């Protein structure tokens, strides 16, 4: 068995060696260059065609703006030229640059605050006050000529309006004497409470009731009833003076 194995290995080696020895020799052939003797025709570019192509929009590849610009495009061209001119100057350019950056930051902050709804007064610690649109009084009691207006109302037999004017006149009188602090947003009852003198407060309270019945309650008032009301107001105002 061992002898057979040795024989096989021996025969294998011998066969390989024989194959190496029997390999054919390759002979390279010399390369032969052929000379091109055909006639070359020289072609020239048609300048007319080039001109035609260059005028066509599809063949314009650079960033040169078309000649027919809209007014909007012209504005922006002018604007960016102006910006370039300004920024090309070293000193003024840097100042303006930082100024614009500052403005842009301020605008962003402003809009951010507006969007989140932050009250500016919160930052200054004054947020307790309210911003309510205040309508100026249509009638300033210190500018009304009461006697003239009352006589006009009486001529028109508008006794209700006359009582209203009498009441406003009384308020003015009390305000002039610093017995009340006149403010359009105060109610009549608030003025009653402001009068320190008990007797006067009681009398003014009655007049206020009469005014409220006639004005807010729209009670009908004839001449006789008006005379009675007028006397009460007149007496009170006499005491106030």
């Amino acid at each position, binding site marked *: 068995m061992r002898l057979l194995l040795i024989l096989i290995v021996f025969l294998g080696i011998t066969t390989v060696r024989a194959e190496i020895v029997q390999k054919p020799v390759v002979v390279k052939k010399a390369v032969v260059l052929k000379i091109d003797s055909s006639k070359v025709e020289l072609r020239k570019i048609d300048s007319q065609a080039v001109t035609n192509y260059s005028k066509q929009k599809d063949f314009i590849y650079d960033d040169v703006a078309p000649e027919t610009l809209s007014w909007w495009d012209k504005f922006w061209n002018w604007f960016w030229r102006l910006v370039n001119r300004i920024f090309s100057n070293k000193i003024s350019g840097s100042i303006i640059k930082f100024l614009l950056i500052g403005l842009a930051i301020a605008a962003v902050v402003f809009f951010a605050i507006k969007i989140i709804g932050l009250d500016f007064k919160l930052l200054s610690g004054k947020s307790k006050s309210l911003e309510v649109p205040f309508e100026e009084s249509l009638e300033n009691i210190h500018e009304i000529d009461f006697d003239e207006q009352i006589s006009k109302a009486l001529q028109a037999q508008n006794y209700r309006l006359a009582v209203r004017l009498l009441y406003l006149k009384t308020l003015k009188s009390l305000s002039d004497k610093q017995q009340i602090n006149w403010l359009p*947003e105060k109610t009549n*009852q608030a003025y009653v409470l402001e009068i320190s003198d008990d007797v006067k407060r009681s009398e003014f309270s009655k007049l206020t009731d009469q005014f409220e019945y*006639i004005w807010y309650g729209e009670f009908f008032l004839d001449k006789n009833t008006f005379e009675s009301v007028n006397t009460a107001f007149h007496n009170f105002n006499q005491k106030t003076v």
Partner: protein
Amino acid sequence: MLNQRTDLTQLSTAVEQIRQTLGKIIVGQKDVIDLLIAGLLADGHLLLEGVPGVAKTLSAKLMAKCISASFSRIQFTPDLMPSDVLGTAVFSPKTAEFQFRHGPIFGNIILVDEINRAPAKTQSALFEAMEERQITVDGSTYKLEEPFMVLATQNPVDQEGTYRLPEAQLDRFLFKIEVKYPSLEDEIQILVNQHQQKSDDQLLEIEAVLSVEQVKALRSTIKALFVEPKLLAYAAQITHETRNNKSLYLGASPRASLAMVNGAKAIAAMAGRDFVTPDDIIKVAAPVLAHRVMLSPEKEMEGLTPADIIAQIIKKIEIPR
């Protein structure tokens, strides 16, 4: 000299009787009692808010006792269902049909105790009942009997286990009445009264002072009261300002303007007048508006309340005179 155009004698008597009845048990809280009466006269629903133990439920029960009408009480809990409030269809084996079983909402005076302890789903059951005085279940509409009044109590929303009521529901309450702690004198009086009390149940001693028909008649009287057009504009202006105010995230609805005028009419009648004055509107402005508006977060952080903002708005609007 100037005679009253509307006879308010019956109304004044009724108001005084209710005041006395409530005053027998409720010590102090004059403003609360007046607003309760005004709410009854103005045909509105009332929300009483206060910390536990300030007699919110007792006030509501007493108010209901003053009227000889049907009374229901619903204790709102987190697991309460809409059908527990409105009623439900139950199968009847005898007739082999579903029959609607009325819920506690069917009554004249409904006490909804701790209303903000039920979630929004249950709250929505009250929407139709409170506004339209009817309920719709399974496609059928059931009218609620007049007078219909919801008296609800709640703890402030920051208390444990409470939900904020939906805005739509808050808008349906005429007034939110804040029940505050009593003064020291009033608290001592409460203790004295409790010490001298004979009956275990104070409410047993209370008798009704108004019938359903009387309540209806008083409400008709209130509706007929006079309001000068400039005062209507004044009320509208106050409401309008709540919508433009930077301190408020949510302004009041036109329903608030209506409530303000109705409430002011009731206050005027209680004062013996058949017409409204600016003071009447100012008196009801905060109870009408405070629960309908929402503060902006910044103002809330500053510790301001809706009532503060409303007071500031009123101070900036000229009185029509």
